[in-house]
C-alpha cells in the first residue's frame, strides 16, 4: 500500500497540471486529483492498471465533466427559483477565460497535443474517443479559440 502511495505521489505533479487544465474555473484542481487518488485506493490500489497516469487522467477528466454537469444543474435549479449562485465567478484574464469556455475534453486534447506533445492517437486514447473524433474536436477547438481571441482583439482595437 505504501508503494501505491509513493507511486501516486510521483504522479501528482503531471496529474495536477492536467487537472488544472480540465477543471471548471471554480474547481480546485487538487480536489480532482485527491478524488482520483481516492478512487484508486477504493479499488484496492494500482494493481492491474497498466498505465497509472493515463488511468488517472481519464478519471480526472470524467470527474471534471461530472462536476461541470452538477454545477450547471445547480445553476439551472437556482435560476428556476429566481436565485443566483452564492459564489462569485472566478475572474481570470480574458484570454484564459476564452480557453475555459471550451469543454473539458477539448482542453484536455489541446493540452496533451500542444504541451505534452502527445500524438492525436495517444491523446484520443487518454480522453476516450477515436482518433478521428479527436482530430475533429481539436480542429473545432482551435477554430473556436481563434475566433474568440480575434473578436477580443477587434474589440480591444475599437476601444483604443
Amino acid at each position: 500500500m505504501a508503494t501505491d502511495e509513493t507511486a501516486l505521489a510521483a504522479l501528482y505533479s503531471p496529474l495536477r497540471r492536467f487537472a488544472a487544465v480540465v477543471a471548471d474555473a471554480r474547481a480546485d484542481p487538487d480536489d480532482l486529483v485527491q478524488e482520483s487518488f481516492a478512487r484508486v485506493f477504493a479499488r484496492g490500489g494500482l494493481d492491474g492498471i497498466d498505465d497509472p497516469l493515463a488511468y488517472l487522467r481519464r478519471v480526472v477528466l470524467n470527474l471534471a465533466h461530472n462536476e461541470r454537469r452538477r454545477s450547471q444543474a445547480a445553476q439551472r435549479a437556482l435560476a428556476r427559483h429566481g436565485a443566483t449562485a452564492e459564489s462569485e465567478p472566478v475572474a481570470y484574464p480574458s484570454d484564459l477565460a476564452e480557453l475555459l469556455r471550451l469543454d473539458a475534453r477539448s482542453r484536455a486534447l489541446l493540452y496533451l497535443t500542444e504541451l505534452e506533445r502527445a500524438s492525436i492517437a495517444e491523446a484520443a486514447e487518454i480522453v476516450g474517443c477515436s482518433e478521428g473524433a479527436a482530430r475533429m474536436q481539436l480542429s473545432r477547438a482551435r477554430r473556436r479559440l481563434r475566433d474568440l481571441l480575434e473578436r477580443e482583439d477587434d474589440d480591444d482595437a475599437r476601444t483604443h
Partner: protein
Amino acid sequence: MPALTDLLETLASRGEPAGADVVVARARAMVAAIPVTETIEPRRRARRARRASLVIVAVAAVVAIVVPVAVLRRSAHEPASSLQTHVSTPGTVVLPEVAPATAAQLATFRWSTVASPPTDMEIGTATWDGHELIIFGPGNTSEHRGVAAAYDPTSNRWRRLPPSPLVEVETDWISAVWTGRQLVVAQGDHATTIGRVVMSSYDPLANRWRAYAAQMMCAGVKPTLTWTGTIVVVTTGDRLQGEACGGAAPNAAHGFDPVSGRWSSLPELPLQPGEYLDTVSTTRALGGVVALMRWVRSDTTAPGTTTPSTAPGSTTTVATPSGASTGHNLHWGERALLLAAGAQQWTPVPHVVLRGMATPFGDDARLVVPPRVEQCPFGAFCGGSLGTEVGFVANRDGSTVPLAATGGDPYVAPDLVAFTGDALVAVVRPDTTIPDCVAATCSEPRAVAWDLTSGHFVALASPAVGSFDAVWTGRELIAFAPEKTPSGGNAVVAVRLGP
C-alpha cells in the same frame, strides 16, 4: 494574440498546489472515512453474489442446450472455410467504373462549394457507389446516431436516407465499404468493453437497411473493411493490450459475407511472442488484401535500448518508458502484410519496410502508402513526432517509388488523402505543435497531388477549409469539413475539386 501554448501553460500552473503528500494523505483519509458503506457492503455483496450465481446457472443451462444444436446445424450447411473461396481473383470484383485522374489534370482543377449535407449530420464515412456519395454519421451522440444521406453530383442535391437499424449503437468507430450492390457499414460498439462489431448494409435500389448479427472482435479502435469481391475482410486494432476479446484472438481477421450475413475466420495477423496488435488498416492491393499493422511489446528493457526485430519486414525498435511506476517500457514497429488470393497466411510485402501507420490505397498493380509524419505511437512518452515524411508506392514487380516530401515542417500531417487511380491527393495542414498555431495563417490548409509513377508532387489550388474525408468520383473530388453554425451548433460543409 497570445500563443496557445502560453495560455495552456498558464492554465496548467493555476492555483497553489497543495503538494503530493498532502493530497495523497487526504485521499487515503477519504477512503478510510466510509465505515457505513463498508459495513453494509458485505451483505449487499452476498445478496448480489447469490442473485448472480442463479442467473449464471440459468444462462449456462440455456447455452449448454442451444449452442451445440446451433453449431451442429450450421456446420451441416456450411462449406469448409478456405481463403481461396474468399479472396477473389482480380477482375471479378463488381465495383463502379471510376475514371482515373493524373496529378497534372488535378492541378488544373478548382475548388468550389456544393450543396451542404443535412444540418443534423456529422461525417463518419463517405463512400462512392458509382452514382451517389453515401455518407453516414458517427453515432456518439443521440441526435446523430444512425443518420445517413446521399449526394448526387449531377443534380447537386442531397437526399436523406432511412435511418440505420442500428441506432442504439453508440460509436464513432465506424467504417463503410461499397460492394457493388450494397454499402456495408461496420460499427465498433462503444458500450461493450469486451469488443463487439456490428454490421449493417444499405441497398440504394431498395432504399432499405439490413442489420446483421454482431461479431465478437477486439473492437478497441475503428474497424477497417476491404471488399474482395466475395467477402468483406474485417480487422480491428486492439487497445486492450493483448487480452482476448469476447473469445476472439486479438489479432484475428474475419470475413463477412453481406449476402448470407455469415462470418468466417481468416488467417490471423502474425505476431511474435510478447507482441500485441495495436492498430491495423487494410486495402485491396497487389492481387490480394494488404494490411498495414502496428505491433507493440512491453518489457523491462532499459529506455533507449535498440532491439532489432526478428520478424521479416519489421523495423528496429527502441524501448520507451511507458509509465513511471510500472518499470515496463514499450517497443513498437509496423509491418506491411499481404494476404494473396489462395494463400493460407499473411506474408510480408516484399521490399517494403514500413515506418509509421497510414491508411493505404491500391489496385492490383500497386500499393500506395500516403506520406505522413513518422510518429511515435505513444506521443508524450517518446517525444511525439519523429519529424520525417515517409510515403511510397510499392509496385507488384517489386520496385518501390518514394513519394516526395512536401517541404517538411510545418506542412506534414495530411488532413485527408484520396486516391484517384493515377494520383494521390492530400490536403496538408501545419504541424500543430508549433507554438503560435492559433494564428490564422497557421491554420490554412493546402492541397498537393503526387504522381504515382515519378513520386513527384504538384501543388493544387488551396481549399478554403480543412477537410476530413474525401472521395474521388471519377470526375471530381468531393470533400467534407466540419463547420460551426451561426447558432454555435455543428454542421458539415461539402466542397468540390473539379474542372
